[in-house]
């Protein structure tokens, strides 16, 4: 591919996976990346916005509840509504739900404990720009690290997410079975990642940016970024 994609990584004061996302897209995939400070209102011509993991504003209230009101989020919301690509990872997913760009909400883990470990994700569809490099049913091993990742929405919302193919990742066991034992936080239907109806906004609790180098235990997270980068190639063709 000729053109480089520009990633804008939003930095809230309590973001702590901002450097990890930046490292992945810039140093591992060799695209452009720039940090976007939460007080700014300029997305600096980014092609993709990443809302990274962390604790945006301390998250003493509800996770992501304050972040959605930040100056940068106004712009991110406009960007998303006009079709711009936005990825929310972990705390970023929580912010996307709080800001209404994605449906549902992330509750405290059923165990009430923070949980950091590698989990297995089953790829539920491969037509989205975040999954096209996979086969349906592929299993990705990617870490989670959250205390509030228990995805919940009203039954009618879940129904429409499922029917529209908006559920892209589900927690599963090593063989791909969707079981309650493999659900690390109590999410409805083991949902780990979803997209919006238009397919340009994606949120997931697991951290693909932490699984891009075998040295760190898994490189399955690359599939998420490769799919996205590939979608630009397909677009260009």
């Amino acid at each position, binding site marked *: 591919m000729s053109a480089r994609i520009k990633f804008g990584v939003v930095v809230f*004061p*309590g973001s*702590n*996976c901002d*450097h*990890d996302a930046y*490292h*992945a897209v810039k140093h591992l995939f060799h695209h452009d990346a720039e940090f976007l400070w939460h007080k700014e209102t300029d997305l600096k011509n980014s092609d993709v916005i990443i809302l990274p*993991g*962390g*604790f945006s*504003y*301390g*998250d*003493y209230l509800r996770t992501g509840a304050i972040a959605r009101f930040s100056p940068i989020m106004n712009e991110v919301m406009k960007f998303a509504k006009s079709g711009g690509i936005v990825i929310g990872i972990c705390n970023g997913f929580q912010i996307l739900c709080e800001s209404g760009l994605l449906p549902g909400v992330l509750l405290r883990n059923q165990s009430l*404990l*923070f*949980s*950091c*470990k590698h989990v297995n994700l089953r790829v539920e569809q491969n037509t989205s720009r975040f999954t096209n490099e996979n086969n349906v049913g592929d299993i990705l091993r990617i*870490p989670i*690290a959250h*205390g509030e990742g228990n995805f919940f929405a009203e039954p009618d919302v879940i129904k429409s997410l499922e029917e529209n193919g908006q559920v892209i990742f589900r927690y599963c066991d090593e063989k791909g079975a969707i079981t309650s034992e493999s659900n690390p936080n109590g999410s409805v239907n083991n949902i780990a990642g979803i997209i919006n109806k238009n397919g340009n906004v994606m949120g997931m609790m697991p*951290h693909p*940016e*932490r699984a*891009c*180098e075998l*040295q*760190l*235990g898994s490189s399955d997270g690359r599939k998420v970024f490769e799919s996205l980068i590939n979608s630009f190639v397909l677009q260009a063709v």
Partner: protein
Amino acid sequence: MKQFEEPVVTKELAKQHGLTDEEFEKVLSILDRVPTYTELGIYSVMWSEHCSYKNSIAQLKTLPRSGKRLLVGAGEENAGLVDIGDGLAVAFKIESHNHPSAVEPYQGAATGVGGIMRDIFTMGARPIASLNSLRFGDIDDKQTRHLLKGVVKGIGDYGNSFGVPTVAGEVYFDPCYQTNPLVNAMSIGIVEHGHVASAIAKGEGNVIMIVGSATGRDGIHGATFASEEISEASESKRPSVQVGDPFTEKLLLEATLEAIRAGLIVGIQDMGAAGLTCSSTEMSAKGNSGMELNLDLVPIRETHMTAYEIMLSESQERMLLVAEPKNEQAIKSIFEKWDLNCITIGKVTSDGMVRIYHQGKLKAEVPAETCVLGGGAPVYIRETKKPDYLAATSSFNVDSLSTPKNLSESIYKLIQSPNIASRRWVFEQYDSMVRTNSVVLPGSDAAVVRIKKSEKLLAAKTDCNGRYVYLNPRKGTMIAVAESGRNVVCTGGKPIAITNCLNFGNPYKPEVYWQFTEAIAGMREACLALDTPVTGGNVSFYNESPTASVFPTPTIGMLGIIEKESHVTTANFKEAGDAIYLLGTNRGDICGSEFLFLEYGIASGDAPFFELAFEVKLQQCALEMIQNGLIKSAHDISEGGLIVSLLESAIVGREKFGFEIKISAGSLPLHRILFGEDQSRIVITSNEKNGSLMKKIAEKYFVPFDRLGTVTQNMKATINSDITLDIEKVDDLYFNALHRSVSRN
């Protein structure tokens, strides 16, 4: 509101502040007058054990504290600083927060993490990994589980939010820690040589700024509280425990590093124990300077705070910094960007006096030098007496014990011991991966983190078996140093330096002080032999409950360097068919072992067999094998002995294995060989074809090297064809035992 009237300072009031008559006399002679109430507060906290190290410093000075890699000496700055090449240095330190955690486990542990992080970034280093070392009472006790849950959640919530991975640690349970748990937190940071900051105040007329959180009444006399025994009355000291705010700390980190890297700062120190008092007097003394501070300018979060309270507050997430006036504005804009207070509260003077003004009055005027460790703070060498209990424990005859009837059952029991079973329930509550540098995750011998700007990786581990130290303080402490080093070696690293956290009882008890001096002597010997100088650390005395002292627990935080990624080695077996070897000799010494405690309830005998000179050879030998690419897995033999080491290697990886081994016990009963905790042994695996090369290396170092058996595909562990264990059962017990214990009501 009625104006606060300061009490008149008397000998009685001084005593209530923890100053002895002799120390109060010393204050009178320094000032040549009766101190003001605020001054009494200043001297009482600065001369508390916690700040002055008055009963330990003479001993600490006997430790090896220099080496070619050390960039600052022990105690000179907030943390030790070690050169790792490539223009980079590592700042690292361990510190206790035992007393606060005993009465308020969540906040006590959280602020312990916060405090040690600030020690690292106040030097200009970005924290990249944290570790901890925890001790609790009997896990069957409800209060223990309350403390455990609170402490683990406190460490997790603070570190997870702050964004530094918690990569390794240790947790032990023993009844001696029942009312006095130990919570030691360690942090490791990376700094480029040119960007190291110092905790110094110098340059007459330079401005002094307070940054970070506003000052409240929390934590007043925290340092003094830490210098007393835990008692029934301790519950009333809950207000002495500070409250942590990791979000503000994260902002403080980013703003501080930005200001240091911009070259705007002359000196900076975090406000930990004794808050503004400690930072102002220590920074002044270090620079042979003085300070004038106007407390009316300090941002406060409670009304009507007195000078005494402002000076003694231990509110968290604050720093004191010194800058040239021309940089004042630039610093303010950096802290403003991060939405933090940044207020100029005074200036540097040249006469060595710290002067405190409040509401237009001079509230304190003390020579900085007289307050601090290494200056006017008292130094004591206390009386020692070998404790009586040692006569009984050392005369224990292990041959008097019956042989366990069913070895398989003993092994299944051992693998579930709270001191052996997987700590997964604990470490999964910590974000161990943030910043994407964690190469070896918790659950292996030592943690490994990479450094993105360098080929090298860091290995780190905390270690101390308090039972060994109790049975033989000198040898037990040597073992703690040796074992943390061995853990680092097993991951492919060369041990380079240590930090220590010395948790002991009341130093005024001669028996406790004897344990302390013996432990220091053992540490000195081991650190010299392993060439791992002491870069700093922390002493925590008064770890006592109404009934007894805790086991003397000198926790070692070991740092090692791994030259390149290909040297990184883990504990888990890699492939069926690989040969299993033992480096070292099985001596069957079950004294002080977990087996003895679990099976017979006995904590007796000497600390297990240990020979320092051999340990050095063993570590060199194992490292050379690793660096030559001959080893697939390496795992230290420690608590639980040979059998636990083998079983762990079989199950801690993603892929599980069985194994078949043959052991010749000679004249000893087999259980002693299986469960003995005699030191300086490593279980390694390799492709059989490497055997002769490995043998050559072993011979060079005079280290015994023997084939034990083979890694197998089937889920069975067979020992001498008379014991067969079900690996799936072992796996379940090992990984779920702690969770099951904690989940009880």
